[in-house]
C-alpha cells in the first residue's frame, strides 16, 4: 500500500475526529451527514470508479442497510450491531443479485445505470407500500442511548464511529487498489475484451465489485438509520442518495482512494454554506443546495474532469516545480 495515498485521508479524518472538542452542534451535524454520504460514496467508487460500472441506483443498497437495521430492531428486537452486520450482508446480497441479473444479461454503460435506477425505484415503491417496512409513515427506532444499542448520547461519539468506518474503507480501498483484485477491476473498466484475453473472469470480478460496493453503501445506510432513528422509503431508497454519492465521486475523483471522501465533504460543505449565506439574505430557500450540487457537477465536469484529487495533484506538482 502506498502510504502517500491514504495518509492525507487519515489525517483529514483525525482532524474531523478532534473537531467535536471545539466545534458547535451545527458543524457536527454537517460532518455527520457528510461522512455518511462519504461512506456511501466510497461504496459507489468501488463499483463505479474502479470497476467502471456506473450506478444510478445506490439507494438500493443504502436503503437495504437502513431498513435491515431498523426492521430487525423494531420487529424482532435484534441488537443494533447485529442489525448493522446483517444490513451490510443484505446490501452485498442485493448487489450480487442486481449484478447477476444485469451483468449476465451483458448490460453495460447507460443501460446498466438505468437498470440500477429501476431496481432502487422498485425497492422504494415496495418499501413505501408494505406494512412490514412501516409503509408511508416510516419507521421510528426507539431511543435508547448506549454503545450496545449503537446509539450515542453525544454526537461526538457517533462522529468517531463514522470516521473510523470511513477510515476502514479508505484502507480497504487502498489495499484493493494495490492488489490483483484492484488490477482486475481497473482492467474491466478500461477494456473488457482485453481483460478477458488476459485471464480475467470479467463476470466474477464485476459481481465481487457490486457485492462489495453494496455492502459498504449499506453500512452507510445502517449508520444513517442509527443516527437519525427515523426513516421512510423516500429517505432510505430515495434518489437523493444515489445522486449525492455519484456527484461526490465525480467531484472528488472516481477511481481514486480519497476522491469520494474529499468530494462528499466539498459537496456538502459548499451546499451548507450556500444554504447559510442565502438564508441570511433571503430567508430559507428550500432546495438551494440541490442547485449548488448541479452547478458543482457542471463545473467539475468542465474544469476537473478527473476530479478534485487529480486537480490537487496537478497543483502540488506545479508548486513543487
Amino acid at each position, binding site marked *: 500500500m502506498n502510504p502517500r495515498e491514504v495518509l492525507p485521508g487519515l489525517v483529514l479524518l483525525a482532524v474531523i475526529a478532534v473537531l467535536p472538542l471545539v466545534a458547535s452542534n451545527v458543524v457536527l451535524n454537517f460532518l455527520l451527514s457528510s461522512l455518511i454520504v462519504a461512506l456511501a460514496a466510497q461504496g459507489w467508487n468501488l463499483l463505479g470508479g474502479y470497476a467502471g460500472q456506473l450506478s444510478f441506483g445506490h439507494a438500493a443498497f443504502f436503503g437495504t442497510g437502513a431498513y435491515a437495521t431498523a426492521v430487525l430492531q423494531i420487529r424482532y428486537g435484534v441488537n443494533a450491531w447485529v442489525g448493522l452486520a446483517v444490513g451490510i450482508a443484505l446490501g452485498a446480497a442485493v448487489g450480487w443479485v442486481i449484478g447477476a441479473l444485469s451483468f449476465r444479461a451483458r448490460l453495460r454503460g447507460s443501460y446498466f445505470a438505468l437498470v440500477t435506477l429501476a431496481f432502487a425505484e422498485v425497492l422504494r415503491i415496495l418499501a413505501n407500500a408494505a406494512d412490514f417496512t412501516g409503509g408511508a409513515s416510516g419507521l421510528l427506532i426507539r431511543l435508547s442511548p448506549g454503545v450496545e444499542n449503537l446509539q450515542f448520547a453525544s454526537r461526538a461519539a457517533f462522529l468517531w464511529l463514522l470516521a473510523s468506518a470511513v477510515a476502514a474503507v479508505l484502507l480497504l480501498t487502498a489495499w484493493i487498489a494495490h492488489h490483483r483484485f484492484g*488490477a*482486475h477491476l481497473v482492467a474491466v473498466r478500461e*477494456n473488457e475484451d*482485453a481483460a*478477458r*484475453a488476459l485471464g480475467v*473472469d470479467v463476470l466474477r470480478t464485476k459481481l465481487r465489485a457490486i457485492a462489495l460496493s453494496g455492502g459498504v453503501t449499506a453500512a452507510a445506510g445502517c449508520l444513517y438509520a442509527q443516527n437519525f432513528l427515523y426513516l421512510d422509503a423516500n429517505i432510505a431508497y430515495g434518489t437523493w442518495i444515489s445522486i449525492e454519492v455519484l456527484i461526490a465521486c465525480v467531484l472528488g475523483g472516481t477511481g481514486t482512494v480519497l476522491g469520494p471522501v474529499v468530494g462528499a465533504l466539498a459537496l456538502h460543505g459548499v451546499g451548507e454554506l450556500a444554504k447559510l449565506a442565502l438564508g441570511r439574505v433571503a430567508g430559507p430557500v428550500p432546495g438551494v443546495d440541490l442547485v449548488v450540487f448541479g452547478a458543482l457537477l457542471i463545473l467539475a465536469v468542465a474544469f476537473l474532469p478527473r476530479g478534485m484529487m487529480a486537480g490537487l495533484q496537478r497543483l502540488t506538482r506545479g508548486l513543487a516545480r
Partner: protein
Amino acid sequence: MSLLRAEGLSRRFGGLLAVDGASLEVPEGGLIGLIGPNGAGKTTLFALLSGFLAPSAGRVEFAGADVTAEPPHRRALRGMARTFQIVQPFAGLTVRENIAVGAYLRHSARREAIRSAEAVAEEVGLGPMLDGQAAALTVAGRKRLELARALATEPRLLLLDEVLAGLNPSEVRDIIPVIRAIRERGVAILMIEHVMQAVMNLCDHVHVLAGGRMIAAGPPQAVTADPRVIEAYLGHGAAARIAAGSAHA
C-alpha cells in the same frame, strides 16, 4: 504432440459462413503462420480458437483437453494468450500497469507481478516506456504492448493477430527478432500476418485461409508458389498468367 488442434471449425453469421470447416494444428514450440486475403475469416478463426466466439460446428483442443466450450479467461489460464488486431490497450493505465494485468494471472502478489511485467517489457523493448501512459504510445509501441501483455500471462501458445500491421519496414525489422526469441524460449506461436517478409522469415509452416476454407498448407516457400494461393490473392487465372510471364522471361 500438437498443442493446439482445431477440427472442422465453422462459424456462421446469419447467411454468411465466415469460417467453413477449418482445421489446423500447432505443435508444441512451433511457429505457424495463418495467411489469407482480406475477409478470409482469419480473425474470426482466431476468435474461435481463443474462445471469444463460439463455433457453429467443430471443436478446439488445447494440450489434449477439449476447450471448445470454455470462455477466454479459462483458456488463458491453460496457457493460451492472444493479441488483438485492433490494439486494445487499457488506455488510462501506465505501460507497467497494463502488462501487470497479464502478469497477475500467474503471480498473485503485487511485487512479483510487477517484477515479471518489467522483465517482459524489457524483452519486447518497452523497458524505457514503463512509466508512460499506454494511450501515449505510438502504433509500434501499442503493438509491442499487446505482445507484452499476452506474454506476461506466461503462455504456452501465443496467438498473434497482425502484430506487424501498420508498422514501417524498420519497425518490422526490429520486432522480428523479438518474436523469434519468444519462440526460442519454447512458446508456440500461431500468427496471422500480411507482412510476407515476416512470414517467410519466421514460420515453419503456413496455413492459407480463403473464403473461410483452408485452401493450402505447407512450408512458406511451397505455399506461396501454390497456384491456388496465388489465385486466392490475385484472382482467377492469375497463377497461369504469372507462370506464362516467367516462361517468357
